[in-house]
């Protein structure tokens, strides 16, 4: 902190109490995020949490930072605009699987290819929670939901292979059943210079009766313990491709950092207009306007 005092965990919490269902995986994401920010000692006023719409997207209200609770699917472009305007801020986008991998998937891909220095946390419950239980882009094939009474017949999106293909420079998966692990993944992602994706398996206890805490516990394993090297792209692709899949018997789910590259310049590094520092601090108006008129004579 600027006056040398340590910022306590409590100082990252707001007065607003979450309205999530008891047991919702998003609680662990919230506390993991507060913990990560506390570990990094980032002042709450230098943080902006930007979300879309969904149960998970309520998260900005529960932190003491600046928050922007945007519209469905647009957390990433709003966050990008904030970061480009004031690159001194720590900008974190957060939301659901529908928000990020469904309606907002175009922005997701392009933000990764841009490698802006923002952190994107997706609370992936494989369902549309707030709209009371329709299929999401990550719903398993065959899953019966309100919108798919005969079972989903589409293949799910694999966010991690998508991220690997799109140029994100920090790609991780966490699990709300492992709060400590979440805090570490968030802290490392926020510290990482470049686009960080943390896909969090965050069970919806109300509408997803298949992908439950127990279901995950039977399948998760630690990438680190198996000696995965996050700088190895092809190994990351192979690990990301592992997912319980009815057709191909790969019934395990890796947790941890799949991929990290710290030698790639961020968008801000390459943007000429930011060479003189954040846009918000640059003077307004034109120093020598008449010069601009020469081309019109």
């Amino acid at each position, binding site marked *: 902190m*600027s006056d040398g005092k340590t910022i306590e965990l409590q100082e990252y919490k707001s007065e*607003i109490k979450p*309205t999530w269902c008891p047991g919702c995986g998003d609680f662990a994401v919230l506390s993991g995020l507060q913990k990560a920010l506390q570990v990094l000692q980032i*002042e*709450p*006023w*230098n943080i*902006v949490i*930007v979300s879309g*719409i969904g149960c998970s997207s*309520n998260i*900005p*209200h529960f932190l*003491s*930072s*600046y*928050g*922007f*609770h*945007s*519209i469905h*699917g*647009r957390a990433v*472009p*709003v*966050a*990008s*605009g*904030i*970061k*480009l*305007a*004031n690159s*001194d*801020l720590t900008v974190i986008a957060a939301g659901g699987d529908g928000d990020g991998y469904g309606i907002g998937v*175009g*922005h997701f*891909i*392009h933000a990764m290819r841009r490698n802006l220095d923002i952190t994107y946390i997706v609370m992936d419950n494989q369902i549309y929670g707030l709209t009371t239980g329709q299929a999401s882009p990550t719903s398993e094939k065959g899953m019966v939901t309100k919108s798919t009474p005969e079972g989903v017949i589409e293949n799910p999106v694999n966010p991690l292979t998508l991220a690997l293909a799109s140029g994100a420079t920090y790609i991780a998966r966490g699990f709300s059943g492992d709060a400590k692990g979440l805090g570490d993944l968030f802290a490392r992602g926020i510290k990482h210079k470049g686009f960080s994706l943390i896909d969090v398996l965050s069970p919806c206890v109300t509408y997803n009766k298949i992908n439950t805490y127990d279901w995950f516990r039977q399948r998760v394993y630690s990438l680190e313990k198996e000696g995965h090297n996050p700088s190895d792209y092809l190994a990351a692709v192979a690990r990301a491709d592992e997912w319980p899949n009815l057709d191909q018997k790969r019934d395990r789910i890796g947790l941890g950092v799949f991929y990290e590259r710290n030698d790639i310049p961020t968008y801000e590094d390459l*943007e*000429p*207009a*930011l060479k*003189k520092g954040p*846009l*918000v601090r*640059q003077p*307004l*108006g*034109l120093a020598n*306007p*008449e010069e*601009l*008129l020469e*081309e*019109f*004579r």
Partner: protein
Amino acid sequence: MSQKELVFRIGGAAGDGSASTAESLAKVCTRSGLYVFTYTSYQSVIRGGHSWVQVRAAEEPVLSQGERPQVLICLNQPTADIHAPQVRENGAIIYDSDTIKLDGLRLAEGVRKIGFPLGRLAREFSNNALMKNTVALGAAVRLFDMDLAVVESAFATVWGDKKREIVDANVKAAAAGYKYVEENGGSLNLGLRHSGKARLLITGNQAIALGALAAGCKFLAQYPMTPASSIMHWMADHAPKHGVVVKQVEDELAAINMAIGAGFAGVRSMTATSGGGFSLMVEGIGQGGMVEAPVVAVLAQRAGPSTGLPTKTEQGDLNLALGAGQGDWPRAILAPRNTDECFRLTAEAFNLAEVYQTPVIVMSDLYLSEGYRTVEGFDFNVPIIRGLLAADGGTAKDKYLRYKITESGVSPRALPGQPGFQFDAGTDEHDEKGELISDVLAGIPEWVEIRKQMMDKRMRKLDGLRRDTKGPELWGPEKADITLISWGSTQGPLREAILDLQEADGLPVNSLEYAYLFPFHADETTAALKRAKRTMSVEGNFTGQFSRLLTAETGIRPDHFFGKYDGEPFYPSEIAAKVREVLG
């Protein structure tokens, strides 16, 4: 207009170089001290088809693209077939006699056929196939009594010192065309006085971009779409030097959302698009109204519906701008009437957006955005008014209310990074702090009341916006047989029609012109229209979108409506004809 003028047209297939030749001529006219107005008729193809450009210049300000040309350059046979019959009496047609025939075309009295081997002559100076255009340009310059030295200086500006050989070759080619006319009949003797006073020749989009820069715009996110793209092009060229981030993004959803993010974070930000892109922006722009973030959105209209006529003009997106976004939220809609206003109103839009913390829409159209017009100069002394900020708003930190209910509807704005002022900007309905009342509180009597108060607070901004913008301008004689109602870019052709009617028929006609469309100025409108004998609204759309707004706001229905939706700009003659018809 009976004033002395020069009207020049050049046509060919896309890729034949009509546009750049016309641009050079427009520059030469500008440097000869004339006022200039251009209109480009092109199609949505990169090669082939038929496109043409008209350049009109005069000693006095020019209000429209004009009508029949005195000089036509044909770059292919279809141009001759389509346009040669329109050349005025005693005018001239310049064409390559090796490839183009005028036989069998009905030309006006005394039209000179200036056919010579343009292509063959051009090959003496360069292998570039477009060099023949320069030979033709030289011929036109002689017909118009302009100076070859001015042509050389224009080329030098276009290509710069680095490409001296290109400049030299072009100068020689122009001289060859000039010489040919010199030896074959000489000038058309239009009698225009030339001077060395060069004003500015600039498109509406360039003026919009310049206005944005002058107002301190630091962020532009845009997705290419005609006729808005050249805003991004010009900004991208100048951005690094002026510390502006110009971002071509994946779609218009990203464009508006990024721009709002940047506005929320404290920089003046903008996006620009046409109707299709604006349609994608509607949810995003409404978000700006709800979270009270400033942003300027330029809507450069083209002919709809849907993809419509991508390279043609229309004023058909007013309903879209008025209705963009679900629910009611305060917005301002400005529509520059001319190039000078493109600069001024864009700059003003940034102030309105920040003072009222809400999106402001600037509406132009292809006609205004892409046409080159002469402007005397720009006043760069643009006031920059950032509105009520939390730091200087006297707000005690511990009870900072981002959405404090105030009389003006405007609450002190904190910017992320400011210690102690953290708040949540929410697109759900929220209380003064920014906390949601949509989930567990909505419907509880106390919160029903707060919801209403928050709506009232935001919508009160419309009163301020109305106060800070101007009512319509009544132009022309105080007493008139008919008052023409117009908005945006229709101003020029409409004024010219009024001058022509006065001169030719002695008919007193005036116009009520709107540059500030919303919030609507009902009182001024009612007062002005009370004095009108008869009214006719003139708009570039099918349903009379502005007339309907006017009627909804005042209960007054214009007596007549003249709508144009064929993709072409208004011509003064057709407005005048309509007035004569109506006054019978």
